[in-house]
């Protein structure tokens, strides 16, 4: 009986890992979060959703172009009322899985002043990008994203200017404004 249960759990984990490229292990934070987003979209669902995206809308057209070669997108985002609701161990659990030869960290940002950390990892297989992981943490916010498939990094980098996010060139003139991470709530 225990063997069967073990096999079932292993099967579930394997199925999850087939979809996602690493496990988030963040479900325990959902109870503490004041606001949370949990999105799991596999390839067929993405392609199904693409049929409903309007090419005339600039944001939707951009997303339609981005999801063309994707096999899944998985997002977990939590907002907390107070600091210390998530721990470094939560992030470290994810980072551990990304310390493999396929994954490489292309950007790492840490602001001691704001207590912010943000990292972008890219998964390369046979010279091709097959996945992207984004970890972004603020004292009262934690977001993990896994985009699975042939991600066009250039398109991903030009997402600014869409979804009401000002383009980077516009931000230059705006001086030091509040981080776009804070804008998330306003766009919901």
């Amino acid at each position, binding site marked *: 009986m225990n063997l069967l249960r073990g096999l079932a759990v292993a099967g579930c984990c394997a199925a999850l890992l087939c979809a996602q490229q690493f496990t988030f292990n963040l479900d325990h934070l959902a109870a503490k979060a004041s606001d949370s987003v949990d999105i799991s979209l596999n390839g067929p669902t993405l392609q199904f959703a693409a049929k409903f995206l309007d090419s005339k809308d600039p944001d939707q057209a951009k997303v339609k172009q981005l999801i063309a070669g994707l096999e899944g997108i998985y*997002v977990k985002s939590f907002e907390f009322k107070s600091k210390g609701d998530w721990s470094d161990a939560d992030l470290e659990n994810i980072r551990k899985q990304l310390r493999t030869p396929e994954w490489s960290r292309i950007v790492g940002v840490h602001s001691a002043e704001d207590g912010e950390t943000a990292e972008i990892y890219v998964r390369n297989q046979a010279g091709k990008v097959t996945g992207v992981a984004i970890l*972004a943490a603020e004292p009262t916010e934690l977001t993990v994203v896994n985009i699975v498939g042939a991600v066009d990094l250039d398109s991903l980098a030009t*997402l600014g200017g869409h979804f009401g996010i000002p383009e980077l060139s516009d931000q230059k003139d705006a001086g030091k404004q509040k981080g776009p*991470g804070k804008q998330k709530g306003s766009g919901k």
Partner: protein
Amino acid sequence: MDWLDQELKLALERKEPSPDFAARVIRRAARGPAHHVQRWLAAAAAVVVMTSAGLSYRHHQGEVAKDQVMLAFKITAVKVNHIQTHVKGAVR
């Protein structure tokens, strides 16, 4: 004549129908086609209702999936933009 012949004779012997048989047949034949049309209409209506319900459910599922995709990319865009802002700020 053995018992089998006897049984067959009994089973196959001509029996007259009841006196109102002809009237019943005529009555059924007269109202039959109308009943068939009603039945077909009901079946067609059921098919139309089920198909349109299926299509609208599928459309709803598509809209939900689209909203989720848009939200996922919005969150991603915000985070990527945030990182780019930090990197640009550090380079300058």
